[in-house]
């Protein structure tokens, strides 16, 4: 097996690992039992004045008789602002936001860069000199370059500062395991190689587009074209596969913590799917061992709930 084939296989494996790890984690979390309500206000989908001060439907007399008002726009607004601008961090830890925001925004731009490179690999033919590109193609290349430059500047600066902060902050010293340092160093190494490629090897992304095209067309014999680019492909692949295996999977886990816990105020209506789930879950056996629970492994939650305590 030659190097090009190996590189392609590694890239495919990385992407598949990423997808599989995200899918596995997503499924694992989504298939957990329905939990008790544990919301915190403000809840983003509230409407009108309530959305401003953090009120809820529970402020209304006979709330269960009122039509349930939820604002998808408010929820989307809060979600999108949080995703893009890390609003919670901006509000509660401004010092960290100054470095965390560039890092995350830089990563978003680098993901966008990947999208632009895929688009470019489809739209721009191989081996065409920049001078012969059409207006649209030239614009696409320009956009790709700007995105790459901005993404790399922000992500590198952010990662470097986050690393420095982790290493020097008294506050974080005891809360920074070796893996946290490794993660940031991993990012920085990937960015350093990406910089080297961008500056010295593949400024116009000709090789990158060719490699992506070969990935999309399963033409495994196309080489990376330069050892530094091959190194970048290997490292980026490993990073992509690694992220969802760690706590950095919070990039999608946040959807659960916000939408399924902190903002989950869905009431239990008679004969609803919620009630059905509760009725299923109270059949789970209980094995807690404290004497007052009086569990024997056969009794379920419904049995235990209805049982009198010892006199």
């Amino acid at each position, binding site marked *: 097996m030659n190097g090009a084939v190996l590189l392609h296989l590694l890239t495919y494996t990385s992407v598949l690992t990423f997808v599989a790890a995200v899918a596995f984690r997503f499924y694992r979390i989504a298939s957990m039992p329905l939990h008790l309500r544990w919301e915190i206000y403000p809840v983003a989908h509230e409407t009108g004045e309530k959305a401003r001060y953090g009120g809820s439907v529970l402020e209304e007399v006979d709330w269960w008789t009122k039509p349930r008002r939820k604002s998808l726009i408010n929820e989307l607004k809060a979600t999108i602002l949080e995703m893009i601008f890390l609003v919670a961090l901006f509000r509660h830890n401004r010092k960290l936001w100054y470095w965390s925001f560039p890092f995350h925004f830089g990563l978003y731009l680098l993901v966008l860069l990947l999208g632009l490179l895929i688009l470019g690999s489809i739209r721009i033919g191989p081996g065409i000199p920049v001078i012969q590109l059409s207006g649209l193609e030239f614009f696409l290349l320009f956009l790709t370059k700007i995105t790459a430059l901005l993404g790399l500047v922000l992500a590198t600066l952010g990662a470097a500062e986050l690393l420095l902060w982790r290493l020097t902050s008294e506050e974080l010293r005891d809360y920074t395991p070796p893996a946290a340092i490794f993660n940031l160093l991993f990012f920085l190494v990937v960015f350093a190689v990406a910089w080297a490629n961008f500056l010295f090897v593949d400024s116009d992304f000709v090789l990158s587009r060719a490699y992506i095209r070969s990935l999309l067309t399963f033409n495994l014999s196309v080489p990376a074209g330069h050892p530094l680019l091959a190194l970048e492909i290997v490292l980026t692949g490993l990073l992509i596969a690694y992220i969802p295996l760690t*706590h950095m999977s919070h990039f999608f886990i946040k959807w659960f913590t916000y939408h399924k816990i902190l903002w989950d105020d869905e009431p239990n209506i008679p004969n609803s799917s919620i009630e059905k789930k509760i009725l299923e879950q109270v059949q789970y056996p209980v094995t807690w061992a404290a004497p007052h629970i009086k569990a024997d492994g056969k009794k379920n939650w419904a049995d235990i709930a209805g049982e009198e305590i010892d006199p």
Partner: protein
Amino acid sequence: MKKGVKVEDIGKPSGQLAHVDVQDLPPFISASPYDNPANVPPWKPLTDRAKQEYEATLDDTIALNIPKPKTREEEQELVRRFLSGLEKLFSRENNWAFLQPLILSVEHCARCQTCIESCHIYEMSGRNDLYRPTFRSEVLRRLYFKYLKPGGRFFRKWQHGDIDLNWTTIARLIELSYRCNLCRRCAQTCAIGVDNGLIAHELRKLFSQEMGIHPKELHTKGSVLQLRVGSSTGMNPVVAKDNIEFIDEDTAERTGIPIETPWDKEGADILLIHNAGEILARPEDHGAFATILQAAGISWTLSSESQEALGYDVINYGLFYDDVMMIKVAVKHAKAAAKLKVKKIVLGECGHAHKALTTIADRILTGDLNIPRESAMTLLHDIVFSGKIAFDPSRNDFPVTLHDPCNLVRLMGIVEPQRRILRHTCPRFREMTPHGVDNYCCGGGSGFAIMSSHNFEDWRMQIAGRKKMDQILNAFKEEPDPSIKKYVCAPCSNCKGQIRDLSNYYHLWEKCGIHFGGLVELIVNAMKDAKPGYLEWPG
């Protein structure tokens, strides 16, 4: 203040892990009597006997009495039971109620420490590392990855940090799970949605449900007593009825409005359930409720159920430490309403009961037991603005501020009804800073308000309650003169208990003219049809 406590130190047998020096605590606002250290009560040290008998190496106090092991076998037994409970805490069958939020919080913290600044206990301890909301979570996280997850101990240590598991770790962790008010202000600030308050709650559950370790005030004198006799106050229905009869008579005398509290009225619209502590400690609370509901022509009743159902004490301390106890009590509350065939349950001025029965029990009560539950705040708001009762706000012409109970406000979103009432009936109402969903806990949350063993009250007053004390002083900073009567409205029984203790501890009335009470007393105090002076000031 000893700072720099490391997470792994928790398992290292040593002297006391952290020390609180009153001199290092943040000062109260200037120009208050508490500028002068002589006005701040001294912190009573633990007795030598307490230190000898119980685990006392966490900090300067004891919340639970964990006896010291006599043999190596006893130590190992504690570790074995802990590991067994840890496994159950993360199992679908034993912890379906909180499994998803727990796993998300344990596995996805970025350890950025953003949440620590939101914690009143951390801030008011002079930023003692032991009281970071992340400290106990980090201990649990490391134990979880070390003992429950595959990957090898070396890899997990590299990934999450080191921790020893021994008797010392567990005994200190048990105590540490009771250094958090479960106010969840930290969770409100986390960008990822990690909930360190939940982790403290889950640890308490592990210790109670698996190891039978819980504060006696919450379990034996709380949930168990309530399930045995009907109320954690020890009142049986006969005593409760006697007390209410007396309250009715006394209230009628004070207001000039005859009232008669209805008991066990089948088919009433509303079953009102108080925190029974109010009936004993603050009879003016029920007196005011009865006066208002009667004046508004509401169809309501109390319930005297005490065995198959629980009708006259709405407390549910299980919420703070034990799901099984919480569920047992919630189900019995619902049964009391079902028996009387009422249209809804209205929760009196008790924050944790609001949350336990309205939102937490929402996914427990099914079928006929899923009877609508509503806050007294909304009902009172409806009554006050219905025009059925005439008010003279000039009767409440004194400075009033509002404490927002965490369970009612941050955790249920009931924010405005109570303040609209205050704006309507109290011309000199002013907010604390911050307030609403950004409020601070009174320091008595999660059951602390009724916990005072050894010198725990000193910890509760000097650290947990310090932020609220500071907020109260700030709210009235323009009127420091103790001859100006001032009122802290706290529409929650536990919060009132904590503010009462703060008041007694710091002599708030004598030094600052600050009194406290509920919302209903202010409403009746402003009722035109009532004789003036329902509100009684101390002294």
